[in-house]
């Protein structure tokens, strides 16, 4: 904290310098800890206090629940996602929640709501994983090459990325899903179509971040040194730049994972998702439920909707907490307030728990 930069009136330069200094000491102090305590999420958990810790834990629990449900769907779900009858007897349509055998009721087309909600987690997780992995690979690759090569290639790529970035992502996903699946698809076809549609939207974000980092790192002495000793371009990009430029990725990763779920649901809601007989998809169920709402059938829409909210909430809470914990300006800490009357008891407690080392 001893760095004294001249303070410009509005800029955050001084704050950033302080932040960097604080971050530096934090990293230095943690060096003696065992490796597993330094893993991203665990170290964040240890650094968090009060509300932030609560948010992070809630998020982690929700994400774990989402992944477990997706994994164990065959065991948890009472029926298949496309079943309208079991043991030769039909489920009956529009059964309210609590009907024997149908905890959350059945839909107008006679599907079991609970089964479709549970199977829907599989689709959501599959799309999330595919979309985020694909966009990281493509985005990082393009950003690396573009930033390192520079010149006209860089300019063109930046222009395209900016144009795509400024465009409503949902509309782009719609165009992509038309291109890929012509609007209707099987389970894996639908999952891939949704994932690729979402990938196109996300690639510019990774591209921008990685490119900016690479452009900055390219001027560093260690890259120059590597060039001087005759290291090839591929090796410089693959080792020297890649490892240093990817530090910020986990944050975008979590934020995009939540957006992937929302985009999938939106596509399904607009009727561009996966056919109901192929896989369960929450957005499609909500689309169907819209017409039911006016006749008072609330359970067909409420439960898939809640599933979306919980899934997105979990991933977002984890991402948000990590973001806040990485930013010293937002990290929970004691406020320097002496004269205000409205000092609640909660802050004092949070402040004493503060273990900022």
């Amino acid at each position, binding site marked *: 904290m001893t760095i004294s930069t001249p*303070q410009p*009136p*509005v800029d955050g330069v001084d*704050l950033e310098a302080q932040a960097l200094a604080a971050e530096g000491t934090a990293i230095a102090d943690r060096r003696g800890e065992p490796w597993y305590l330094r893993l991203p999420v665990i170290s964040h958990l240890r650094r968090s206090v*009060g*509300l932030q810790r609560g*948010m992070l834990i809630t998020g982690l629990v929700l994400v774990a629940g989402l992944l477990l449900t997706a994994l164990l769907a065959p065991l948890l779900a009472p029926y298949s996602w496309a079943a309208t009858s079991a043991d030769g007897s039909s489920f009956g349509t529009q059964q309210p929640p609590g009907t024997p055998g149908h905890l959350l009721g059945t839909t107008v087309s006679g599907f079991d709501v609970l089964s479709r909600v549970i199977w829907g987690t599989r689709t959501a997780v599959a799309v999330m994983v595919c979309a985020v992995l694909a966009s990281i690979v493509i985005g990082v690759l393009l950003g690396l090459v573009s930033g390192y090569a520079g010149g006209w290639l860089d300019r063109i790529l930046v*222009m*395209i990325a*900016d*144009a*795509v970035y*400024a*465009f*409503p*992502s*949902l*509309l782009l996903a*719609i*165009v*992509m899903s*038309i*291109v*890929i699946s*012509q*609007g209707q698809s099987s389970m894996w076809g639908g999952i891939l179509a949704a994932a690729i549609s979402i990938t196109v939207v996300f690639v510019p974000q990774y591209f921008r971040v990685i490119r900016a980092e690479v452009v900055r790192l390219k001027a560093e002495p260690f890259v120059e040194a590597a060039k001087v000793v005759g290291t090839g371009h591929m090796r410089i990009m693959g080792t020297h730049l890649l490892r240093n430029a990817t530090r910020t990725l986990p944050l975008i990763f979590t934020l995009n994972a939540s957006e992937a779920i929302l985009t999938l*649901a*939106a596509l399904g*809601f*607009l*009727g*561009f998702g996966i056919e109901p007989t192929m896989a369960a998809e929450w*957005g499609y169920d*909500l689309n169907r*439920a*819209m017409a039911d*709402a*006016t006749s*008072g059938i*609330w359970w067909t*829409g*409420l439960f898939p*909707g809640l599933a*979306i*909210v919980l899934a*997105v*909430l979990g991933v*977002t*809470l984890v991402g*948000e907490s990590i973001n806040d914990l990485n930013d010293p*300006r*937002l990290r*929970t800490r004691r*406020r320097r307030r002496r004269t*205000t009357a*409205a000092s*609640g008891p*909660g*802050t004092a407690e*949070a402040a004493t728990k503060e273990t900022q080392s």
Partner: protein
Amino acid sequence: MTPAPSTSTPETAGAPDHGRSGAGVPTPAPAAAAPKARRGLGGLGRYILVRFALIIPTVLILMTVVFFLMRVTGDPITAAQGGRLTPEELAARRAAAGYDRPLIVQYLEYLGNVLRGDFGTTYTDHTPVVRILLTYGAATAELVVYAVIVALALGIPLGMIAARRRDRWPDAVLRISAILAYATPVFFVGLLLKLIFSVALGWLPVAGRISNRGELAMGQILNPSPFYLLDAIRLGSPELIADALSHAILPALALGLLTGGIFLRLVRTNLIGTLEMPYVDSARSRGVREGRLATRHALRPALIPIITVMGMQIAMMLGGAVLTETTFEWKGLGYMLAQYMQARDYVAVQGIVMMLAVIVAVSNFVVDVIAALIDPRVRY
């Protein structure tokens, strides 16, 4: 949008004039402003011109990308009629529409048409896409304006409360609600609002822009505008005004909550940042009350990023508007887009998407100009 003109006054004398013309009619503004700006405002005129010129490549790139993407896999006629016609018939129709020519020829023709303001004619009902924009664009604009009002009215005051009560319970509650607002899809919010206020309580209409009786009454007006509320006010009938407004409440809430949550978080983060600035400390040491510090001293600089982010929000809101309009059968561009998608009319889809791209590019330009007027550091 409200803080824009007032904040710009102290920093750039004479600037609000440009700000207003830029916000109202985007196209002629740079030309009118440029010569004056070169004399009095230094780099501002140049900035506006350069920024305006940047719209062209953005729109051109998007048009190229969307055009080739949509044509790589097939042409609109095969998409709409595939399976229903014999291959010979299909080929004949494709030849008649010119879809059998080389892609690059079609592309250049398409660009030429767009330059003349022709975005194509829909395949299913043979309506020029531009007419769809004129008929339904106003409804979308109306919805977005309502939603922005809701978002600002919720986001700014609540964000200020969260920042001032940082890390105490109001902050915790507000931050969690903001994340919830983000995590809930617009159409699910819409469904919940419908279930509560329309079905269970019966207070508000379920869907549409106006009741059937209202539509009939509107028919009496001589040259109707596409804005129902405006027409209702012109007719001077309180019943009609209430009718139009009651239909708008739920869609505006659904779309506004989403953006309101984002505004809340932005105001909170930025206000916390500015409240720690030395000039605020110095004002505090002079005995300025905490409430006044937040509303007067720290708020204005904290609002600048919001205006910048608003540009991005317009893109997101148009995406959200597609979903909101479908949820509430609000007959705007988004509703029509979903209808044409279901009918597999990809000429219409492409046309509407392109027009939305132009709208987004122009509104981003306007937002950037406003940001430059308020904050001199933005300029080149």
